[in-house]
């Protein structure tokens, strides 16, 4: 049904709207309304943060030497080559990927559930991962006759075992959540079920901890601190492709996410197949959040805060700009938090979760409070 280009409101002259050129003269129409320039700014900031994370660290390496190493030369001290290439570079890449992945999942969850408090772990993904890790870490040492010896064998492999267990936990949670999401009508129901699942797994982990030996508890707690430094190049060969595919899927979902802003009913009336949309959103979220948790431990804050930060800075809820924005800002925040956690020059390291929250929360709060209209921060 074509719309005829005439306005028939009384006392208004008839205006032919045939060409865009003439419209420019009387232009009430906004451009795209998207602040694309900010994205460029973010990209620059990201490069700067990346460079900084290579230069700063617990060992003092002069920036010139860092560059030398990157270009393939020999630095002042032989250990520095290994430090830059085997420690700092993979850590920086991990931080960027993790930051981007978690922020994107958080954005998707907030849109899917129309809830500003949603984060990537609202569907119980982190809980599933924690349970997997708890089963492995807390049963460690029980080799031989113990029925959990398979898991203990996993823990013998240290890092790899934990990654495998965490991935398994996330994957099983994902399957469960997808299954439920196809059968449940309202998004709120799905949300509540996810939270309940989180409670159940949390309870099981508590029981496991209760019966564990102190050092195993310590190992589990240490996992819970989260860290980017544990991911080696060989692990990156799995981590990076997984995160990138998750990001690609999320990017393809931009249109669906935008239409979901109107709510489930309107989205459906505009032609969106709700079940299919939910499937892909949950899948990409679980892929991103699950793999970050598997390789880096549970990392909070980013998933919930970065989308809000971007919405406030970019003044838009349109995913066409939020998606790239969140990817860039997520990477930046993760890198900066990691730099600070390293306490450059001191040789000591702080848990990343604590640093992120301590630095990030006040900043995000300040940005959001500066909004004239608080409701605008989430359209409420």
């Amino acid at each position, binding site marked *: 049904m074509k719309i005829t280009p005439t*306005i028939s409101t009384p006392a208004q002259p008839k205006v032919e709207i045939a060409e865009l050129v003439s419209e420019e003269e009387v232009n009430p*129409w*906004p451009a795209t309304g998207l602040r694309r320039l900010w994205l460029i700014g973010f990209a620059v900031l990201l490069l700067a943060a990346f460079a900084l994370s290579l230069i700063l660290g617990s060992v003092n390496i002069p920036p010139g030497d860092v560059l030398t190493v990157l270009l393939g030369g020999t630095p002042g001290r032989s250990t520095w080559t290994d430090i830059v290439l085997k420690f700092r570079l993979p850590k920086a890449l991990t931080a960027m990927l993790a930051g981007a992945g978690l922020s994107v999942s958080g954005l998707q969850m907030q849109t899917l559930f129309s809830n500003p408090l949603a984060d990537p772990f609202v569907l119980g993904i982190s809980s599933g991962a924690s349970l997997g890790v708890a089963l492995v870490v807390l049963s460690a040492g029980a080799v031989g006759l113990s029925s959990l010896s398979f898991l203990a064998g996993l823990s013998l492999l240290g890092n790899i075992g934990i990654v495998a267990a965490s991935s398994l936990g996330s994957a099983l949670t994902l399957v469960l959540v997808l299954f439920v999401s196809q059968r449940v009508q309202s998004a709120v129901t799905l949300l509540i079920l996810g939270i309940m699942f989180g409670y159940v797994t949390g309870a099981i982990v508590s029981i496991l901890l209760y019966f564990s030996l102190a050092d195993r508890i310590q190992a589990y707690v240490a996992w819970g601190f989260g860290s980017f430094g544990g991911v080696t190049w060989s692990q990156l060969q799995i981590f990076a492709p997984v995160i990138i595919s998750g990001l690609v899927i999320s990017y393809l979902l931009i249109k669906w996410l*935008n239409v979901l802003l109107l709510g489930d009913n309107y989205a459906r*009336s505009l*032609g969106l197949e709700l079940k299919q949309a939910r499937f892909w959103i949950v899948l990409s979220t679980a892929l991103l959040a699950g793999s970050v948790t598997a390789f880096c431990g549970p990392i909070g804050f980013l998933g919930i805060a970065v989308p809000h930060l971007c919405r406030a800075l970019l*003044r838009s*809820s349109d995913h*066409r700009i939020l998606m790239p924005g969140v990817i860039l800002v997520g990477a930046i925040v993760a890198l900066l938090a990691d730099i600070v956690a390293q306490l450059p020059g001191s040789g000591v390291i702080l848990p990343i979760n604590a640093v992120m929250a301590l630095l990030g929360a006040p900043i995000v709060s300040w940005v959001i409070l500066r909004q004239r209209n608080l409701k*605008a921060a989430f359209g409420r």
Partner: protein
Amino acid sequence: MSKVVLSATNLTIGYPRPRHPTRIVAENINLELRAGELVCLLGPNGAGKSTLLRTLSGIATPIAGEVLLGGKDITKLKPTELAKRLGVVLTDRVEAGMLTGYALVALGRHPYTNWSGRLSRQDEQVVRHSIEAVGAVHLAARPITELSDGERQKLMIARALAQEPELLILDEPTAFLDLPRRVDILRTLRKLAYEAERAVLVSTHDLDLALRSADRIWLLPPGGPLTSGAPEDLVLNGSFQQTFYSEGVTFNSESGSFQMVDNWLDQIALVGEGLRAIWTARALERNGFRVIRDKTSTEYLVEVLPNGFWRMTYQEIRQEFQSLYGLIQHLKNLIQL
């Protein structure tokens, strides 16, 4: 006769309930919606208007019978296909976040755009035309969080328009709006129906406005059956009164509105002409007095004086008043004696 956009044949509507038999709301509905027509769906609360709308827009499945949109069974249409033919405006509160009015309306192009939602030149044109058609150009650049409910409602209608549908279905679009805004919306809808040869179906509680603007009215009393006709036809054949009478409210065919009063206190004779007489009669009726012409059948007499005053005579006692308010107060005192 213009073409039939939507038709329902032997339609039975209802909804399933867990562990209970399906609740049937209305049975054997047959109706047609034609291009260029504005149809208002009226009925008391709980009669099933929402269920009917949901069935007609393909959200709910018919218990029996079928709904055809453009000749095709609506339940068999793919969602994108359906979205290009039917636009709905619901009562849902939209919290879409920080979007401009333009971006909100642009979402209506969802069935037409590519994977990223990018708007082609043609898409942009349609969006702009839709905004103009509802008279919301001044809202396009503003963030929707700053807009009032009425303004947002207009944009939602524009969004539905941007789908370039042949049928628009609106569920109580005038709820929460003030009178001028309500008039505005209905006027816009009429225009949208006529000028673009589009079918528009509106469910509303605004009886007065519906009677004045609809081409056809669908009356749905609780339990059915659905009667359809021009508004005036339905008043003259008594369908209107019947539908609403059961609720304990009386529809006054002469005035075209509902009576506030059921039991008359007494009769009163009125002498006077013109506008002042009309409004005096309304004031008297509002207070429970039935206005008659015959002075002899009642003890009360009100005269509308040419000098702008009123005179009230009761049992030889006469008094003059400067305002209707004063007159009424006096009348009330008399009654109490």
